[in-house]
Structures are given as structure tokens and as C-alpha cells.
């Protein structure tokens, strides 16, 4: 019998809103947690949620439907969605190779996958710009082919692929490691072709993790600022991202307008994550059935 069972408080001794425990420190730990969460996150967040309405509902609507704001939101969220899609494929490939095809130096490569998490975004931004600028090592050959990456929406997508890369790898990799190869071998024995196995056996098992990773990469990319502003060119209506518009509005002391754009980003982000979550729930249900 575990100590928890021996020491459980006698029934009816003292009714509490939480499950009784002999461990001390609940009020203190909960107090510290809630105080810090309120001071650092919830109170500031409430300012973001409340301040746009100083403009009135019509004013908020006017701000978020302003063509420049709409264009910026479209660029931030559109590029984030495209980058997350690319990262789904790339992340799947890298995770698969790391788990199923060991090669010399695998551990080093595994560690390098996390570099976009560790490298400050401003550093990534100027490095990517230097590479893809028209006179950069990759920018020059690409521009000779007629493709311009830096200072175009393509550059934004590229920077967002960089920042989102580790998410899919890190969510899919552990699931692949736990996936028993017996099932795949059984499918092979029963005559399934490799593409069939990949699609009908492996994919259903990793789909929920893949969606989680795509969601994380999308949320991160939609709000990304540091790695994007150097390579984006920041042309209004064309390559201006939503976080930059917030910065511009703040510089003009348009607090309510900046908060309205921030709130719109928050709502769009959570809508995206909600859609991915429901998709995941559907997949999980189908997986069990």
C-alpha cells in the first residue's frame, strides 16, 4: 500500500475544495503562482483586451478593416500558414531520418535542430538577409534565375520556416520513437506497399503529434517579429507584417489602435489553434474507432 493511502485524511474530518493531501505548502505555492501570473500576465493582458474599446466598437472595426491593417494581418497569418505547411513536410522528413535512419553524427544533427529556438531572432534575421540579399551567396544565383527572396513576401516565409522548424520535429520525433516497427512489418508481410504503409499505418499514428507541431509552428510564426523585419523589406500593403504595424502605431502614440491590432492577432491566433485542435480531436476519434 502506498503511503498516500495510509495517510489519507479520515473521511469527513475537514471538507475542502481540493482533494486532501498531507503535503504542506499548497496555499503558499498557489498564492505565489497566482500572484505572479496576475501581475506579469493577466493584468497586462486585460489592458490589451480592454483598451481597444476606447475607440468604440465602430472605431475598433475601422482600425482592423483598414486596408493596411488587413494586408498586414493577411501577410502575417498567410505566411505563417504557408511556413507551417512547409515545416510539416520538412519536420516529418527530419524526424523520420533521425529516428529510422541512424547515421554517423546523428547526435550533432539532432542538437542542431534546436538552433532556431536558441539563436536570438535578430541574429537569424540579419543572417538570412545577408544570405538572400541580391548580392548574397544564395541571393545572387537566385536573382539570376529571376527569383528575389529578400525584401519580398518570399523572404518572410523563409524566415518563418526557420523559426518554426524545430516544433514539428520535436513533437513527431518521440511518437515515431515509440511506434513499434512490428506493425509496419506485419503490413509488409500482408502485402502492403511502402506508400500504403506510410499513409495507412504510420500516418494515423503520428497525425495528432504532427498537428500539434504544426499548430505551435503556426502560432509562433504568426507573431514573429525579430527574424522577419530585416528580410521583409517592410513595404506597406505588400511585405509589412502585423507586429510591425503595432510598433508603428505605438510610435505615433496610437495606443488604442495598436491594442486593436494586437487583439485582432490574438483572436486570429486562437481561432487557428482552435481549428487545429478540433481537427486533432476528429483524427483521434477516428484513430480509436
Amino acid at each position, binding site marked *: 500500500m*502506498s*503511503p*498516500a493511502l495510509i*495517510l489519507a485524511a479520515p473521511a469527513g474530518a475537514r471538507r475542502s*475544495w481540493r*482533494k486532501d*493531501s498531507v*503535503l*504542506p*505548502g*499548497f496555499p503558499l*505555492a498557489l498564492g*505565489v*503562482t497566482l500572484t*505572479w*501570473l496576475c501581475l*506579469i*500576465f493577466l493584468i*497586462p*493582458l486585460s489592458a*490589451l483586451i480592454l483598451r481597444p474599446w476606447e475607440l468604440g466598437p465602430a472605431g475598433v472595426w475601422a482600425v482592423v478593416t483598414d486596408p493596411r491593417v488587413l494586408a498586414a494581418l493577411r501577410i502575417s497569418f498567410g505566411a505563417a500558414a504557408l511556413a507551417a505547411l512547409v515545416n510539416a513536410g520538412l519536420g516529418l*522528413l*527530419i524526424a*523520420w*531520418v533521425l529516428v529510422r*535512419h541512424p547515421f554517423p553524427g546523428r547526435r550533432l*544533427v*539532432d*542538437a*542542431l535542430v534546436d*538552433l532556431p*529556438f*536558441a*539563436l*536570438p*531572432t*535578430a*541574429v537569424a534575421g*540579419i*543572417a538570412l538577409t*545577408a*544570405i538572400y540579399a541580391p548580392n548574397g551567396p544564395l541571393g545572387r544565383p537566385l536573382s539570376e534565375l529571376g527569383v528575389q527572396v529578400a525584401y519580398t513576401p518570399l523572404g518572410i516565409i523563409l524566415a518563418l*520556416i526557420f523559426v518554426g*522548424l524545430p516544433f514539428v520535429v520535436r513533437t513527431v520525433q*518521440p511518437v515515431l520513437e515509440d511506434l513499434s516497427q512490428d506493425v509496419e512489418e506485419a503490413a509488409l508481410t500482408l502485402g502492403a506497399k511502402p506508400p500504403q504503409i506510410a499513409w495507412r499505418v504510420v500516418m494515423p499514428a503520428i497525425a495528432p503529434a504532427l498537428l500539434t507541431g504544426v499548430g*505551435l509552428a503556426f502560432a*509562433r510564426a504568426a*507573431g*514573429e*517579429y*525579430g527574424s522577419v523585419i*530585416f528580410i521583409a523589406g517592410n513595404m506597406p500593403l505588400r511585405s509589412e507584417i502585423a507586429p*510591425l504595424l503595432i*510598433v508603428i502605431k*505605438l510610435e505615433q*502614440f496610437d*495606443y488604442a489602435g495598436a*491594442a486593436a491590432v*494586437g487583439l485582432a492577432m490574438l483572436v486570429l491566433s*486562437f481561432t487557428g489553434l482552435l481549428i487545429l485542435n478540433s481537427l486533432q480531436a476528429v483524427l483521434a476519434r477516428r484513430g480509436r474507432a
Partner: protein
Amino acid sequence: MTLRSLTPGGAALILAALTALGLLVVLPLAMVFHEAFRQGLGAYLTALAEPDAWAALRLTLLVAAISVPLNAVFGLAAAWTIAKFEFPGRSLLVTLIDLPFSISPVVSGLVWVLLFGAHGWLGPLMQELGVQVIFNVTGVVLATVLVTLPFVARELIPLMEQQGTDEEIAAITLGAGPWTTFFRVTLPNVKWGLLYGVLLCNARAMGEFGAVSVVSGHIRGLTNTLPLHVEILYNEYDFVGAFAVATVLAGLALVTLALKSALEWRHAGELAAVRRH
């Protein structure tokens, strides 16, 4: 498994993955050092010896030294609450703690301006008190704390959940006091996880750009952190200077990755991030 068991298909996949990582991750890293040393070691060292760069480095270290311990204490308290007790609203609390990760860094800076800026809710009060938060080190610290809030907590919560409460209950039963139990039983059990969380928290605190950029005001020598200094130099077309400062941050990233990997290899059983695998 050895290379001998490699199939042509496997080799092609490995090659594709390595090419993608090489172009996306290794090339930018190499580019930072290439550009920094473009005009030779002398120019590199001169750029690093700038007093403004040193002031930025000092501020970055100061901000991390304040924010990381605060969020480490928060992470320990949150993990103790969530992992060791059952109470209504527990999963809501977990969601709230994770939420700052899904918010744009610029918004994480914006919220502080909305509170303490010249036209902020508390702006006039702060002015009367003579306290400046925005365009000041205080604002930089607040923005950094918000951005790095989840790091330690999200590493410790799953770890402490896995470890359960048996050892703490045993200690209490044997007569140990609450703090003795915490410092002699719980803390030693989670020390590698705590270090892991602190490591990631610190890397983000020192490298944060968007949130800090909104509240700092970019005052050279005063409220400029290293990442902001990179931006200033870059916008002044001082590319050697910008990339020289960037090498310091890239070095920090590489050290972080090395320590993180070392922890993952040597203490895999004592880290939630790895045990989940």
C-alpha cells in the same frame, strides 16, 4: 545500426534532411561568423571593444540575472501546486501558464506600454511618483519576464507529475518539516530539470528582441540590450559591427545547445523533456 544496413532510399532521405538543415540552419550560423570577420580580426575586435557594445552586454546580463531567478521561483511554485495537488481549475492554470508562448513578442511588449506608457492606465500615476517604467530598464525586465514566464514551469510540471508524491509523504511522515522536505527531497529530485528549464529561459531572456524592442526606446548605453544593439548597428549600415555583436549572441546559442544536449544525454531519466520521448 551501421552504415552497412543503409538502403538507397534511406540514403536519399538522409541526404535530403541534411541538405534542408544545412541550408536552413547551418548556413545562417556560418554567415554570422563569415560577415563578422569579413574585414579581418582587427575590425572584429575593434567592433566588439565599442563602449556601447559593452553597455549592451552589461544590460543583457543584468536583465537575465533578474528575470531568470524570478521565473525559476515561479516555475517551482507552479509545479509544486500543479503536480503535487489536485484541485479544481488545475488544467486551466496549466493552459494559462503556457499561453505566453502563443502570443507575439511585440504584443508582450505592447501590454506594458498600455499599462505604464505616457498614455497608459498607470502612466499619469507613475509620472507623479517619478517612476519611469517604459523606455527604462524596468520595462525591459518586465517584458523579458513575461516572454520567459513558461520555460521553467513547463519543464518542471510534467517532471514532478511523473515523480509523484510518495517520497515527500515519506519525508513528512518521518517528521521532516515542509522546507526540509522541499530542499532535501523535492529539489534534489528535480535539479537537472530545473537546470534545463533555467538554461532555456536564460537563452530566451538574453536573446529576446521583439518584446524588449517595444519597451526599450533604444537609448544607447542605457536601455539597449545586445539584440537591440545588433539592430541599431545594422540599420546604420555598420555590418561588421552588427555581425560582430551577433557572434556573441550566436556563441551564447551554441553554448546553450551544447549544455542542453549534455543534460539530455547524461541525465535523460531526470528530464521531462526527454522522458516524454
